[in-house]
C-alpha cells in the first residue's frame, strides 16, 4: 500500500472518525480521502470495525461481560476496603499468647460484624425501590398508539436490568391501583401517585410525559422521594422523529441512574440497550403490550393472536415465543430459547424455567423461578407458576404457600385463587377450597370460570347436586364453556340421569368450533351406553365417532383415545384378541404422537395380554416397564399395575395388593383403585375393599366414565364385600343399584346373574 501523500492528514484520521474535527477541517480531510488511497483504506477498515462496535450483538455481549467481570472485581475491591486491616505485629515475640487469643477472638467477632454489615446487591436494590408510573401522552391523551405505555414499560424493562435498583413492575402498579380502588370503593383516577408508590413500598416514584410535536419527541420525567414528597430530579430528553423511542428510553435510563445511584454504583452498572432486551421494532412492542394486557384478562385466544403479530414484526422477540408456548403449544419454546440472548434478565429466568419444565426437569424449572423472585420479589407470575409446578408434583403444601404469596402481592389475582381452591381441595381442606374459589367469584362474578371451579370442588367432594348447580351457573354465563358442559354431562351420568347427560354432551358437540374440539366432544357420546352396560351399542357409537373424526381429518390425540376405548370395550366383551389388536394399533400411534413417552398405556396392554393368555409377551412388556421406571415418573406405577395384574392371574393376591397399592398411591387413577379393590377382595381383605369401592363410587371424573362398566361394577363388588363382612342390608342396596343401573345391559357380564343370585339369596335370608 502506498504511503499518505500528506502526513498532516493522516494524523487527523482519528479525530475525524471520533467526530472531533471542525467543519473546515472535516472538508479538507474528506477531500483528501477522495484522493489518498492510503488514508481511505485505513479509515474504511476501521469503519467496518466501528459498524460492528455499534451493531454486533457479540461485541455488545462482550462489552457487557467485561463490565460484569469488572463489577465483580470492583465489588470485591469495595468489600476489601470495608475489611478492617490488622496492624502488622512489629514485635511478635513481645506479645503474650493471651493477647493473641484475644485478637483471634476479636478477629472472629469482627469477621462476623463485617459479614453482617456488607450489603448484598439484593439488599441495596431493595433499599432503592422505585415505582414507575404510566407516562402520560400529552399529544394524544387517549394514548391510542400506546406510546406513553410503551415508554413506561420500556423504562421498567431497562431499569429492571439494574442490580442496584428494584423496579416495581407496571403490572404491580396496575394491580395495586385496581385493588385500592376496589377495597376503598374509589375511582382509579382518584388514587394519587404518591399514595400508590407508598402502597408499593417504593422509595422513589418516577412519573413522566411523552409528547410529540411536529418533528420532535420530548420525554420528561420527574423523580420524587416518596417519604418526603420532595422532587429529587427532573429531566427532559428531546429527540427528532428519526430517533427511535428505544434510544430515547436508553437516554432516560442513563439519566435516572445518574440521578439516583452514587457514581461508584452507576459506574459498575452494565449497559444494555433497551431494544436489546425487548425488540427493535416499535410495532412488535406495541402488539406485545397488547398481548400482555389480554393475557392478564385471561383472554387467551386474543393474547395468542397479539403475540403471533409480534413475531410477524420481530421474529426474534423471545418473550412473544414464551407466551405462545404457554398459550398455543410448547414447540414455541424453541424460538424463545433461540433468542433468549435478546431477552431481559427477568424474562430469561421465565424462559429457562419453561424450557426446563417442558423437558420435565422440574428441579431446574423451580430453581429458575426461585432465583427470579430473589431478584424480582414482586413477580406474582413467578410465585403463581411455582405454585403450579408444586401442584403438578403433588407438593400441595408448597403449592399453597406460593399461590398465597401470589395473592398477597396481588389480592385480585384470580388465577392464583383458582389454583388455591384446587390445592386446598387436594390437601383435603374443603372449607379453604370453597373460601378460595368464593374469593375468585367475588372478584369476577361475571366470569364462568370460578363457577366451573366451584363445580369441580363440589364434584370432587361428592356433592354432585351442588356441582351440577354450579356448572349450570357457569354455562348460564358462558353457554360455550366446554369444561362445565363436559363435567355437567359426566355428573348427570353418575346420577343415572342419562337423558340430561345426553343433552349436555350434545350441547358440547354443538359449541365446538373446530375439528379438535369436536373430536374431543364426541367421545362423551360413547360413555352413555358404556355406563349402561350396552357394549355393542358403545362399540357402534365409538366406530361412528371414529368415522366422524376421520371426516374432520383429525388424526391426533382425540382420535387415538377412541382406539383405546375400543380396546377397553373389547376387553369387557372378553374378546381379548381383538382388544390386543386394538392396543397394537393404538400404542405405536400414541408413541409417535408422544415420542418422549415410552411407558403410558403399557399397563393396560399388559393386562390384556395376560387375559389373552400371552403371558410371555406380557412379561416382556413388564421388563420394558421395569427398565423405564427410573426414566419416567409414570414408569413405576405402570409397572406396579401390570405386575399386580400378573400377581392376580397367578393367584398371588397379597403381592397384587402390594403392587396395586403402590400404583394407586402414585397415580390417582380410577383403574388403579378399581384393581386394588379387586385385589383386596381376592385377598379376603373385605374392609379394605369396602373402603376402596366406596371411595371409587365418589370419584366423579371422566376417567371413571371412560371405564364406565367398571364404574358400575364397583357397586356389585362393594356389595360382595359388604356381604362378606355381614353388612347384608348394604349389600342388598348395592346389588339393587347395580341391577337397576344395568337394567338394559348386554347379557355378557358374569356379574349380572351373580348379582341377581346373591340378591335373591339375601332377600330370602331376610
Amino acid at each position, binding site marked *: 500500500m502506498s504511503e499518505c501523500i500528506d502526513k498532516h492528514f493522516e494524523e487527523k484520521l482519528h479525530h475525524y472518525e*471520533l467526530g472531533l474535527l471542525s467543519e473546515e477541517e472535516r472538508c479538507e480531510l*474528506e477531500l483528501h480521502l477522495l484522493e489518498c488511497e492510503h488514508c481511505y483504506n485505513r479509515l474504511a477498515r476501521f469503519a467496518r470495525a466501528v459498524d460492528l462496535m455499534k451493531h454486533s450483538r457479540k461485541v455488545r455481549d462482550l462489552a457487557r461481560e467485561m463490565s460484569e467481570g469488572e463489577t465483580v472485581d470492583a465489588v470485591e475491591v469495595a468489600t476489601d476496603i470495608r475489611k478492617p486491616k490488622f496492624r502488622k505485629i512489629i514485635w511478635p515475640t513481645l506479645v503474650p499468647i493471651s493477647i493473641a487469643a484475644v485478637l483471634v477472638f476479636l478477629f472472629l467477632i469482627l469477621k462476623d460484624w463485617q459479614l453482617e454489615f456488607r450489603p448484598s446487591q439484593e439488599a441495596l436494590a431493595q433499599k432503592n425501590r422505585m415505582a414507575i408510573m404510566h407516562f402520560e401522552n400529552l399529544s394524544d391523551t387517549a394514548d391510542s398508539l400506546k406510546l406513553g405505555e410503551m415508554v413506561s414499560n420500556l423504562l421498567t424493562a431497562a431499569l429492571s436490568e439494574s442490580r442496584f435498583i428494584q423496579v416495581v413492575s407496571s403490572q404491580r402498579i396496575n394491580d395495586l391501583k385496581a385493588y385500592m380502588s376496589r377495597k376503598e370503593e374509589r375511582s382509579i383516577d382518584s388514587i394519587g401517585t404518591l399514595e400508590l408508590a407508598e402502597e408499593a413500598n417504593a422509595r422513589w416514584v418516577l412519573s413522566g410525559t411523552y409528547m410529540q410535536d411536529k418533528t420532535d419527541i420530548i420525554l420528561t420525567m420527574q423523580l420524587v422521594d416518596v417519604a418526603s414528597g420532595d422532587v429529587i430530579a427532573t429531566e427532559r430528553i428531546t429527540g427528532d422523529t428519526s430517533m427511535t423511542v428505544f434510544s430515547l428510553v436508553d437516554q432516560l435510563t442513563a439519566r435516572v441512574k445518574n440521578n439516583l445511584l452514587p457514581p461508584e454504583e452507576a459506574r459498575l452498572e452494565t449497559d444494555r440497550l433497551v431494544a436489546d432486551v425487548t425488540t427493535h421494532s416499535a410495532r412488535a412492542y406495541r402488539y406485545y403490550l397488547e398481548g400482555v394486557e389480554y393475557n392478564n384478562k385471561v383472554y387467551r385466544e386474543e393474547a395468542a393472536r397479539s403475540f403471533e403479530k409480534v413475531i410477524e414484526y420481530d421474529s426474534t422477540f423471545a418473550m412473544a415465543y414464551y407466551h405462545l408456548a404457554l398459550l398455543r403449544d410448547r414447540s414455541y419454546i424453541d424460538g424463545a430459547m433461540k433468542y433468549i440472548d435478546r431477552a431481559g434478565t427477568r424474562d430469561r429466568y421465565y424462559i429457562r424455567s419453561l424450557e426446563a419444565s417442558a423437558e420435565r426437569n422440574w428441579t431446574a424449572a423451580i430453581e429458575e423461578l426461585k432465583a427470579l423472585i430473589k431478584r424480582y420479589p414482586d413477580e406474582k407470575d413467578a410465585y403463581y407458576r411455582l405454585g403450579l409446578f408444586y401442584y403438578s408434583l403433588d407438593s400441595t403444601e408448597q403449592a399453597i404457600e406460593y399461590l398465597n404469596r401470589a395473592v398477597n402481592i396481588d389480592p385480585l389475582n384470580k388465577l392464583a385463587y383458582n389454583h388455591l381452591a384446587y390445592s386446598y381441595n387436594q390437601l383435603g381442606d374443603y372449607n379453604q377450597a370453597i373460601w378460595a374459589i368464593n374469593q375468585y367469584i367475588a372478584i369476577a362474578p361475571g366470569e364462568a370460570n370460578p363457577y366451573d371451579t366451584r363445580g369441580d370442588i363440589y364434584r370432587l367432594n361428592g356433592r354432585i347436586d351442588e356441582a351440577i348447580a354450579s356448572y349450570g351457573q357457569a354455562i348460564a354465563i358462558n353457554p360455550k364453556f366446554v369444561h362445565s358442559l363436559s363435567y355437567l354431562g359426566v355428573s348427570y351420568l353418575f346420577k343415572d340421569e342419562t337423558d340430561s347427560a345426553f343433552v349436555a354432551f350434545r350441547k358440547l358437540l354443538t359449541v365446538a368450533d373446530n375439528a379438535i374440539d369436536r373430536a374431543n366432544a364426541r367421545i362423551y357420546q360413547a360413555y352413555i351406553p358404556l355406563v349402561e352396560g350396552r357394549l355393542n351399542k358403545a362399540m357402534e357409537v365409538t366406530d361412528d365417532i371414529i368415522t366422524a373424526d376421520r371426516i374432520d381429518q383429525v388424526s391426533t390425540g382425540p382420535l387415538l383415545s377412541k382406539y383405546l376405548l375400543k380396546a377397553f370395550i373389547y376387553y369387557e366383551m372378553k374378546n381379548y384378541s381383538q382388544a390386543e389388536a386394538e392396543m397394537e394399533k393404538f400404542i405405536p400411534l400414541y408413541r409417535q404422537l408422544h415420542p418422549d413417552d415410552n411407558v403410558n398405556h403399557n399397563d393396560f396392554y399388559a393386562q390384556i395380554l395376560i387375559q389373552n393368555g400371552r403371558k410371555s409377551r406380557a412379561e416382556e412388556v413388564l421388563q420394558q416397564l421395569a427398565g423405564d421406571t427410573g426414566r419416567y415418573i409414570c414408569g413405576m406405577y405402570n409397572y406396579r399395575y401390570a405386575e399386580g395384574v400378573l400377581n392376580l392371574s397367578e393367584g398371588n393376591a397379597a403381592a397384587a395388593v402390594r403392587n396395586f397399592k403402590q400404583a394407586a398411591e402414585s397415580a390417582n387413577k380410577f383403574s388403579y383403585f378399581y384393581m386394588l379393590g379387586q385385589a383386596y377382595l381376592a385377598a379376603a381383605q373385605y374392609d379394605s375393599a369396602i373402603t376402596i369401592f366406596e371411595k371409587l363410587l365418589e370419584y366423579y371424573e371422566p376417567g371413571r366414565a371412560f371405564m364406565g362398566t367398571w364404574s358400575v361394577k364397583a357397586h356389585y363388588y362393594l356389595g360382595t364385600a359388604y356381604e362378606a363382612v355381614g353388612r347384608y342390608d348394604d349389600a342388598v342396596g348395592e346389588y339393587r343399584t347395580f341391577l337397576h343401573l344395568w337394567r338394559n345391559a348386554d347379557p355378557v357380564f358374569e356379574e349380572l346373574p351373580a348379582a341377581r343370585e346373591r340378591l335373591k339369596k339375601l332377600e330370602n335370608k331376610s
Partner: protein
Amino acid sequence: MNINELYLSAQSGDRAAEEKLFEYLYLRFILFAKQRVWNEEDAEDLVQGTLLFIKEEYVNVQIQKSFVAWAYSIIHNRLLNYISKKKRRRDVIVPTSEYTEDTFGSEPDPVLENNLLNCLRKIFAVNQRYARILNFHYQGFTTEEVCRKLNLTRNHSYVLLHKARTLLERCLEKGDIN
C-alpha cells in the same frame, strides 16, 4: 489509476472506467455520510441520490477546478442540506405511529468480528477503561455522559478515547496491541 484519471477515461466513454469511478465514489461517500447521518438507510439514500446526479451531469458539466472537488462539493452540500432539513422539518407534521427503526445493514463479516472481539479482550486486559470508553462512545453516549460514567474530565476523555482508538486500530491491523 487515480480518481481523476478514472474520470477522464469515463468521460471519454470507457464504461468499465465509469463503473470503477462510481464504485470508488460510492465507497468514500458512504463513509462520509455515515459520519454525519446516524440512520443508515438515510445515508444510503443520500449517497445514491448524489451519485445519480453526478452520473447524469458529469459528462456535460464544465468542471472548473477538478472532478474530485466538484463531486465532493455535491455530496458535501447534500449532507448539509440533509442536516438543515432535519432542523427545518419542525414545520412538518409527522405521523406519530411510525418510527425509524435501527438498521443493521448486511450480515457482519465473521473474520472481522472475531478480530474485533479478540482486540477488545486484549485492550480490556491492558486497560479496562479503554475498552469501556470505546464501548460507550460507539454505543452513542455523549461525551458528557461518558465523562459522568467514567468519572473523567472532558479533556481526559478525549485523550483516553484517542489512545483507545489508536490501540484498537493497531490491534486490528497487526493482530496485537504491542
